[in-house]
Every structure is written in structure tokens, then in C-alpha cells.
């Protein structure tokens, strides 16, 4: 029982240690990577990634069409 508990406590320290070690290394790696990417592959911001996919771009046009149509419809001369 006490042995089990001490294994558990060791596991806790080891585990949290590794989690922090891993994510800290990841922080450094990301900073390095971002610096490298920004230096060697300077891109315009990833607009393309957050832009809608084919489907939603259709939706956008649809929405635009709807809005235009509605606008027209309301302002009928």
C-alpha cells in the first residue's frame, strides 16, 4: 500500500516533470520554427487558411447574392 503510494508519488513528479519538459521544449521549438519560417518563408498571413473552403465561399457568394437581391428588392423603384 505504502509502496503503491510511493510509486504513485514518483509517477506524479516524473509525469508532471515530463509534461513540463515536453511542452517547454515545444515552446522553444515553436519560437525557433516561427523565426526560421518568418525569415526564410516570409508569407502574407495565413489568410488562406482561415478563409472559407470551397463550400463556404459558395455560401459567401450566395450570401452576397442574397444581400444584393434583398437590397434591390427593398429599394425597388
Amino acid at each position: 500500500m505504502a509502496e503503491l503510494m510511493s510509486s504513485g508519488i514518483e509517477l506524479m513528479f516524473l509525469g508532471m516533470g515530463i509534461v513540463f519538459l515536453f511542452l517547454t521544449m515545444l515552446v522553444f521549438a515553436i519560437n525557433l520554427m516561427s523565426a526560421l519560417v518568418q525569415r526564410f518563408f516570409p508569407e502574407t498571413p495565413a489568410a488562406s487558411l482561415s478563409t472559407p473552403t470551397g463550400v463556404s465561399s459558395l455560401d459567401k457568394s450566395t450570401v452576397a447574392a442574397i444581400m444584393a437581391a434583398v437590397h434591390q428588392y427593398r429599394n425597388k423603384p
Partner: protein
Amino acid sequence: MENLVSLWQSTGLYNFTGGQALMMLVGFLLLYLAIKKGFEPLLLLPIGFGAILSNIPVAGIAEEGGLLYYLYFGIKAGIFPLLIFMGVGAMTDFGPMLANPKTLLLGAAAQFGIFASLIGALALNVVPGLEFTLKDAAAIGIIGGADGPTAIYVASKLSPDLLGAIAVAAYSYMALVPLIQPPIMRALTTEAERKIEMQQMRSVSKAEKIVFPLMLLLLSILLLPSATPLIGMFALGNLMNACGVVERLSQTAQNELINIVTIFLGLSVGSKLSANAFLQIETLGILALGACAFAIGTAAGVIMAKIMNRFSDTPINPLIGAAGVSAVPMAARVANKLGLESNPHNFLLMHAMGPNVAGVIGSAVAAGVLLSLIK
């Protein structure tokens, strides 16, 4: 006549055991929570239904030759949770985290909930009747990771008998995040801290988003191979989405494939909700420990954020630390909501998404540690 008797002896009424009836009630309760209370319905509805189906007397739907028996293979082999993790990866945008990488540490801190409840489970062994092995304790602790597929994957490897209870606890508490977290967050922060506004984030380039999942996988390969099934499939999904050249695979991974697997996974998890596995004092222990795990993880995340705020040159609102438990995206929304209460112009959502997705990585890493150290 003989037929009538044999028919009566084949009814559910004749064959019901008390345990099955109770488990069926548990199943209906899960359906109620899913449908009426909106508790993670995508998972709890199939899990609840699986619990009902698998506890039907005579029918043997979860026994050899039954549908749920076959479906369960997908969990035993780890296939379902890994495919779901791939889909989740494809849905995840690491942009906010890459814009502010130090929020990864919040995702690390919040994993303390996992290990604290592991210790708690071992401590509960003083209660007569409870006998959690180290494997059981680890599987229970992973509830604190607040990530469904990770919890199911680890439990299926370390403690399959507790899988049902652990999955139910994990998804239930994820649904309860908006209730569990706020009091803890308020207790640990001052009004002034909650008012802190954070700097607008830089935008992240497509190249960074492509390289990141590969870098994450590589680090995990070098340091913690036992986490690579989880992190690998997550990175695959994320890469498919980020790279932009396999759009149709990415869409299928985050839609039809994850939907199909979710139905199957839910039903199979439900099939582990049998009376003699669930109606045990252990289950009460698991539910109690799960709640502690979420609470402790939340607290650890907030405290870590307070510490970081002290030493950082840019301000960090401690509320976003709570999002480190993962429970994507509810925990981030909770942080946002509390931020708005104190400061109506303070939109923390994007800032909280960093620790939120970092929490997914953190719990996958913690899972890797548990899987590699506990034999």
C-alpha cells in the same frame, strides 16, 4: 402451451436481473442528460443507448455474436479513439497557440489534475472494498485530461473494466465544465486580474501551421514514443487540414469518418456499462475523483497563469489558465465569459484557445507517460 411457457421464459420481464434494470436506468439517465441537458450529446447519446442495449437480458447484444461485441473490437484495438483523434486534429486550429507559444505552459500545468487524482485514487484504497491498482489509478487520473478519446484510449489499454465509468465521467464532467470551473476561477483570481486585457495576437502563417504538427510529432518520437499513436494521429489530421492539398481527405476526416466512428465508439463504450462492472463502489470513487481532477486541473492552470503574469512582459489574464485542462472549446468559452463579466470589452476567447489546444497536447503527453511507465 410449451411454446407459451418458453416464450414467457424468453421475455425480458422473466429474465431481468436487478443490476441490468439499474444499468438500464443509468442508460436512460445518460440519454436524458444528453438530450434534455445538452451534456456532450454526440457521445453521451450513443453511450447511453449502448448501455441500454448491452443490458437487455437474453438478447446478448454485447456478447459474442452480438453487434456491440464486434464493435467493441474497434476500441480494444485502439482504432476508434485514434480515428476520432485524427478528426479532432483536423478540426483544431493551432493558430492562437502558435501566436503565443508560452501559453503551452498553461496546458502543461493543468495536467496536474491527472496526477493528483491518480494519487487520490491510490489514497482511496484505504476505504475498505476499494482496491485500485496503479493501472486503475492512472486510467482514472486521465479523466483529468478532459479529453474523451485520450481517456478512452488510455483506459482501454490500462484498465478496460473501468472503461465505461471512466468514459462516462470524462464526458459528463466535460459537459459540466461551465459549472465546475467558474467558482474555482473566481476564488483564485482578484477582480483586477480578471480585468486584465491581453495584447492582440499576431497572425500566424500557413507555413508555421504546416510545420507545427510535424514538429510536435518529431518531439514526441524523440522523447515519448508511447504517446505517438495519439499525437501521431492528431498531427496527421492537423496536417491534412493545414497543408491545404488534401482538402477532401481532411473534410471526410472531420465529418463523415468522425461521425461514423463516434456512433460506433459511443455504442461500444456503452457496452462496457454492465452491472457487474459499473454498479460497484469503484464507480462512486471514479466519479468523485473525476470531479476532483477537473477542479485541481483548473486550479493548477489558473495558478500557473498568475505566476506567468507576474514574470511576463506582456500581461496574461489568469482566467485563460483554466482553459489549459482542454475540454475544447468549452473551457475557453468559460474563460471568455468570466472575462466579459469583469470587463465587457475583454474578449479572451482567442487567447484562451491557445492553452485550450495546448491542454490536448498536454494530456496526450501525460497519457504517454502513464502508458510507458506503468506495466
